[in-house]
């Protein structure tokens, strides 16, 4: 019996749904797993059931799963405690691995964020920034591995249920788990004709005509849709192998992150786009578009005023 401890930090909850979405294989896994801590499922308080405790209590477990990045001091404390209590720590989902969508906020300084959220927004009644009984926010959004050591990464927004099974099975058998350094293009079934792109179209202009299969479609980048496949790690298709967004007729948005650790998808993509003769100015909001899920690790940052 392997004890599993799961914690969600700065996240929407989609990765938890993805765990549930494992479906039938979950039934085979469950007899070997014992969930000892999982706030999304069970009511387990950090400081005793009535708040009488003085130290944070997270039960010991062989496997720890963290979803979501770190946005406030409470989340930082939980992540540190999880690391202490778990033998193997898995970062699940793009937020835990690279900051994810919330890390787009790293483009702005804190005062601007407070101003927009609590005062400047058209639909908000202006009020003071709340501070009472709330954990203070960290200066920016951190990926889990910027705060504690992580043993396995499972990116994706949300990640594929097949990959969760693969990772859990690997951990149960005591094997290391990592994704191969391949790009989404390596698993993409569309046809490439090596023709230059002249302009960038937006995905809301029709892509794959209804009724046409992706296998018979041309490469979306060649059709003029900004597809992050060339600079994104493969694996989102799971057992199906076909990348999920491509399967749905949409270009890749880069949720699996850089192919190699430390690579910069924006620079890689801009280099590739300008090499095929595309005007680099025609890419809207390039910094955030090309680093939509990878804003932590200081990739997205407020621009210094000049």
């Amino acid at each position, binding site marked *: 019996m392997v004890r599993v401890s799961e914690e969600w930090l700065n996240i929407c909850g989609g990765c938890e749904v993805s765990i549930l979405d494992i479906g039938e294989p979950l039934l085979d896994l469950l007899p070997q797993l014992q969930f000892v801590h999982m706030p999304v499922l069970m009511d387990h308080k950090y400081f005793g059931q009535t708040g009488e405790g003085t130290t944070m209590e997270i039960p010991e477990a062989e496997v720890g799963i963290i979803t979501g990045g770190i946005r406030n001091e409470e989340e930082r404390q939980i992540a540190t405690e999880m690391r202490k209590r778990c033998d193997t720590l898995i970062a699940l989902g793009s937020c835990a691995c690279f900051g994810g969508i919330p890390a787009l906020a790293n483009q702005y300084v804190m005062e601007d964020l407070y101003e927009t959220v609590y005062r400047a927004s058209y639909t908000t009644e202006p009020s003071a920034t709340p501070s009472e009984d709330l954990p203070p926010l960290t200066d920016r959004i951190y990926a889990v591995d910027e705060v504690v050591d992580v043993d396995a990464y499972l990116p994706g927004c949300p990640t594929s249920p097949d990959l969760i099974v693969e990772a859990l099975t690997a951990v149960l058998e005591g094997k290391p788990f990592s994704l191969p350094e391949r790009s989404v293009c390596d698993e993409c079934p569309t046809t490439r004709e090596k023709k230059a792109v002249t302009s960038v179209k937006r995905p809301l202009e029709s892509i794959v005509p209804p009724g046409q299969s992706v296998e018979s479609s041309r490469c979306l980048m060649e059709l003029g849709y900004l597809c992050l496949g060339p600079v994104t790690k493969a694996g989102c298709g799971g057992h199906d192998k076909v990348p999920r967004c491509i399967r749905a007729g949409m270009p890749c948005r880069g949720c699996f992150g850089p192919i190699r650790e430390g690579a910069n998808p*924006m620079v890689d993509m*801009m280099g590739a786009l*300008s*090499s095929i003769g595309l*005007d*680099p100015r025609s890419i809207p909001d*390039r910094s955030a578009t090309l680093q939509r899920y990878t804003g932590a690790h200081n990739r997205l940052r407020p*621009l*210094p005023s000049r």
Partner: protein
Amino acid sequence: MAQPAVEPVRSNEFEPLVLTFCCNWCAYAGADLAGVSRMQYPPNIRIIRVMCTGMIHPNLVIEALTKGADGVLVCGCHIGDCHYQSGNMRAEARADSIKLMLEDFGLEPERFDLQWVSASEGARFAQVATDIVERVRALGPSPYRV
């Protein structure tokens, strides 16, 4: 161990470090010519010889500028003279996006320059090198400099 006779001059003034990529066929020969002709140009240039400007991926430039260099200069053959037919045209296409991305990294686009220097243009290499060193000196140290 013998001590150097003259202590190196160290001043507190900012001395820019400009990484220079020169293509093997034109610009490196041009820089060589500037050297053997004893032309004067600032010692702030550090030349790296590459086979073609077309192989200089934006990653190399961004990496240099975010890890300590104050400026990056890329020199290659004039358009039409590329040893590999179209490598320098590729470099030219990339130069635009490099300048755009420097803004995303909070750097001045003027820290990067792409210039064509043929093997016979030693004087031009000296001029181009002087220009970028002076320009970067005026901008000051890169914010990423450690």
